[in-house]
């Protein structure tokens, strides 16, 4: 189990990580979702030992890691750019750790060959050993990088946006394979990514990193349907957030007064969150019964294949997004510049207390 306690890392005046706590249980695929510049790479580099925290501690199975040099931490690291050794062949890359590691290096050539072949087998690259790393494709390099790390049997594997350098359809395939490989080895993976779909697909558990702290840790579906705070909701890229103030049991927002179910004291600043796919669109005169609604102007649409995204602007400039599924269309034909009622069932709205 990897445990981070109050880890803080500053670069001059900039605080990258601010008293961060995180637990990565054994035998788990944990994906860490964070925007670019949120400090997610910094977090991995602290765990691996390429950088040290200013405060806090990093523990692996109860043993302090911070302060130890990186080569004595026994932690695997898969780089975004793969960082293969360009002067070595594929099998020499994979055998590198076995041959030259400080403790537990293997002398027997036959044993090294066997373990190298097993590792290449595991990532589906048997027969590629003799090739130079310049002679294989991006996806294959990714597998070599993974095999090179896994062959040394690290206690935990850190993956820094490992799919970032691959094209879309290779990425989808590698997603499945990464999960399958991890399940066979029973080692924990900590996978850092900026893509919410990747984080939700990959992780048994997903952690959201925002403002140098972990905003929420949950399984994918709980996180997606019940974000605990605005930061988590924003990172999922599936929730509209409307800031407002409570006023006599209702919410005064920029789009007018909206009823709320919860009892909240007057003048509490809150944010109302409604998921992109829970909002319906209709003529202002035909709002379905029992649905809350507000008005907004249709700006433009974006066609994404199986889904279509529509953008609306509220009178004071707030941007609202609505998702429609192609096979199960809910939206009428929309005209740019026209006002529509955006409606949703009251129980679809989530209320976050506190200012935006």
């Amino acid at each position, binding site marked *: 189990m990897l445990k981070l306690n109050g880890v803080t890392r500053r670069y001059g005046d900039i605080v990258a990580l601010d008293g961060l706590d995180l637990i990565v249980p054994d035998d788990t695929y944990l994906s860490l979702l964070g925007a670019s510049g949120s400090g997610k790479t910094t977090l991995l580099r602290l765990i*691996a*030992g*390429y950088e040290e925290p200013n405060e806090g501690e990093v523990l692996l199975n109860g043993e302090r890691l911070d302060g130890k*040099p*990186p*080569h*004595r931490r*026994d*932690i*695997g*690291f898969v*780089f*975004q*750019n*793969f*960082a*293969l*050794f*360009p*002067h070595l062949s594929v099998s020499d*890359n994979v055998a*590198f*750790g076995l041959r*030259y*590691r*400080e*403790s*537990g290096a293997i002398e027997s050539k036959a044993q090294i060959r066997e373990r190298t072949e097993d590792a290449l087998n595991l990532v589906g690259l048997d027969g590629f050993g003799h090739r*130079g*790393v*310049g*002679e294989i494709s*991006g996806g294959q*390099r990714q597998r070599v*990088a993974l095999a*090179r*790390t896994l062959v*040394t049997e*690290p206690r935990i594997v850190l993956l820094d946006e490992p799919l*970032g*350098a691959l094209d879309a359809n290779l990425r989808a395939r590698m997603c499945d394979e990464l999960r399958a490989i991890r399940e066979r080895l029973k080692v924990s993976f900590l996978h850092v990514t900026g893509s919410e779909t990747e984080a939700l697909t990959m992780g048994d558990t997903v952690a959201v990193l925002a403002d140098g702290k972990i905003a929420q840790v949950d399984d994918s579906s709980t996180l997606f349907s019940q974000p605990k705070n605005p930061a988590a909701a924003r990172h999922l890229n599936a929730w509209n957030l409307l800031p407002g103030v409570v006023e006599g049991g209702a919410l005064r927002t920029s789009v007018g007064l909206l009823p709320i179910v919860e009892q909240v004291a007057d003048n509490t600043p809150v944010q109302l969150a409604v998921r992109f796919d829970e909002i319906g669109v209709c003529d202002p005169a035909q709002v379905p019964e029992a649905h809350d609604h507000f008005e907004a102007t249709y700006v433009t649409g974006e066609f994404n294949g199986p889904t279509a995204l529509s953008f609306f602007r509220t009178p004071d400039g707030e941007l609202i997004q609505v998702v429609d599924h192609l096979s199960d269309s809910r939206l009428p034909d929309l005209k740019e510049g026209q006002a529509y009622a955006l409606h949703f069932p009251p129980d679809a709205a989530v209320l976050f207390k506190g200012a935006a």
Partner: protein
Amino acid sequence: MQVGLLRPALALYAALFLLFLYGPMIVLAILSFQSQGGGPQFPIQEWSVYWYKHLLGLAETSRVSQLPVGDSLIRSLVLAFLTTVVSVTLGTMSAEAFRTRFKGSGPVFYLIILGMMVPGVLVGLGVALLSNFLDIGRAWWSTSFVLHVVYTFPFAFLVMLAIFNRFDRSVEEASLSLGVSPAQTFRRVTFPLIFPGVLSAMLFSFTLSYDEFSRTLFTAGADLTLPLAIYGTFSVEIYPNVFAFGVLTTLFSFTLLVIYGLLMKRFTRNKRFAGQEDA
């Protein structure tokens, strides 16, 4: 200037440049085939390889004494080799130090560079005075050697700095994450990858030291290096044997360049940074 004129003008400039670069060498090469009776000037009396034989001591005795290059050539080669080893080692180590910012790195950088900026005659004279003052004997392998290192170290340092500048640190980090110690990482990853740079730094140091003149002039003591020995013969009278020697040393330099080229090709073919994507 009109675009139509620019190209011929540049071509003319390039042609003149090449002429001035190679002209003197070609003239020397032609004159080295002068016959025994001819002097160091045109016209060629008769084509012959007499002066080459003379240089190598194969000609029958003549009134022209043999060039005293034998010992000085060996001295120069040994000196250049030692200088190369020390300068490139120091240069690589200090360039490695400059990969991370450290306190005072700015001033230290300029102090190193100063070694190649200060006029050679001045440092040479200074070291000569200093060694007299400290009562240290001057010799090509001591005082001159130190000055050669001071002179070539900045070049080696700059070459290695440029190499490290475009070196991707993540391959070293990858090696560390596999449990390989920093020393082994340098040996197995860093050094093989910077080796082409090391070769370039070696070439620089060697050639700079091999024909160094001004710094050596005051510090070499009694035993002369090659450039000093050749200069010494000028003060008597010039014969075409100097030209013959020039041709031979030029050939030697070209051989070095060819070896360098072959080694570079061997170590950089399809390999350099091929294992990484552009992140």
